[in-house]
């Protein structure tokens, strides 16, 4: 019996030591800051800039902080299975988005419950990006909200506020969007 206990303890230690987490940070900078993201120059819209932290627990499960929750200390755990995204709440997996059926789930953050919607698709610099929005389920309307543009390979790479601020993920974009490119995105709505 003692031998079995030691065996399982060793197995547990082995699992812990081999399952090292991979952590990535992604910074979202204003379109006008993208060429110099570390600048401390004051500019309209800088209040929206942020860095998100993604912790991979394994190949298909990761935890993302800040991106949707707006808070470093609040994170959402995601799982991707056969291209379908799930998030974890109350120890259960719930649908986030099903690309195959084009069906969005419902998710709560920032005091509201939202319906996840895939609005349309744009081709930007030869890459296909999917536009994701969150529509409040309850009887409220936002005067200001964000549109998220999603690359299946990279995640959210572009965020546009309806007030006109544009955030680019700095590991994906290194050249600012031109006025023509912004118009193209806006006209694709």
């Amino acid at each position, binding site marked *: 019996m003692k031998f079995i206990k030691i065996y399982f303890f060793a197995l547990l230690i082995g699992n812990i030591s081999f399952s090292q987490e991979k952590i990535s940070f992604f910074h979202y900078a204003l379109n006008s800051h993208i060429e110099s993201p570390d600048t401390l120059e004051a500019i*309209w819209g*800088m209040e929206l800039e942020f860095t998100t932290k993604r912790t991979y627990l394994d190949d298909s499960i990761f935890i993302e902080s800040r*991106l949707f929750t707006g808070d470093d200390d609040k994170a959402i755990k995601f799982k991707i299975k056969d291209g379908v995204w799930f998030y974890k709440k109350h120890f259960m997996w719930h649908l986030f988005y099903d690309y195959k059926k084009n069906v969005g789930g419902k998710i709560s953050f920032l005091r509201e419950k939202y319906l996840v919607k895939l609005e349309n698709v744009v081709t930007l610099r030869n890459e296909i990006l999917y536009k994701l929005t969150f529509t409040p389920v309850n009887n409220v309307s936002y005067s200001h909200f964000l549109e998220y543009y999603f690359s299946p390979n990279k995640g959210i790479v572009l965020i546009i506020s309806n*007030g*006109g601020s544009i955030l680019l993920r700095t590991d994906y974009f290194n050249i600012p969007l031109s006025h023509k490119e912004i118009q193209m995105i806006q006209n694709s709505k």
Partner: protein
Amino acid sequence: MIPCSKPSPCVGIRTCSDYSPFGVELDGRTVSLEGYRFGYQGFEKDNEFKGDGNSYTTEFRQLDPRLGRWLSVDPLNEIFPEMSPYNSVGNSPIFFVDVDGKKIVPSNDFLSTDYGRVFQNLRVNNSEFGKSIEKFENNTQYNLYLWINDTKCKSAGAAGLTKGPEKPRASRTANVNSWFLSSTDVSENTKFQYSELGVVLIVAHEAIHQKLSLSPLIEDANHNIYNTEREALVKILTEYSIDNNLNLSKENIDILSFAGQQNSKEFEKYISDLAHVNNLTFEQQKKIYDKSLSKLIHVKKVVPITD
């Protein structure tokens, strides 16, 4: 507590207490004379029900301060679908008080914040601002509900949250009930904060959204409909500038009044026209605009001096 040594006349403190956020009297920090019935937020104590300090009664409901929950549902629960009908003060005891168990109103603590002061100042002294929110005054159906969440640079980015309007349209109202969840810090990294003019701009901008929410117009995603009310924002800012001797030029008022509308067709035309006059590209002119706006509404953060 100061005991009265003379029968009369005499002034003394009858009760003194420190409370947890939702109203539990803290052990060792409460003294009270027999017979004094009132406590947290001026509520009447209901000591027979659950023991000393464990229950309060108001005009509409009973509160259990240990849970921070009312014992019965909110009489206005239908117009606050996003909140539990049992929650107390919107779960934000710093920002609100709820004196009758029915309607939460801004607390004095909130009104002493930067946003609270500006809101109250504009509400009382700026006639154009007053016109923008007049439909919310004494309205029993809709509350002015502003939520500005720049504190931690919320990436979900909602700067204003408007309750309603749904059919039927609002009728009339009680107190203006504003909801700001914010400091004036712009960013943790950039060491800037909003100037008072910046706070005025944000409050006024969102008030116009609120005005539109009770009008027949339905706002579009890009602030094109909002732009039809830009003149109201110009008037608010002009009046504020005169009242406070800021001498803002028409050019600066225009820069301010286009803030947050950079997706609108009017803004596109505004920048294109300026770019044409200045012989610049659209991108160059837009960058100048962003910097000019920032100069008006951002100031270096005041860092307290420490030894």
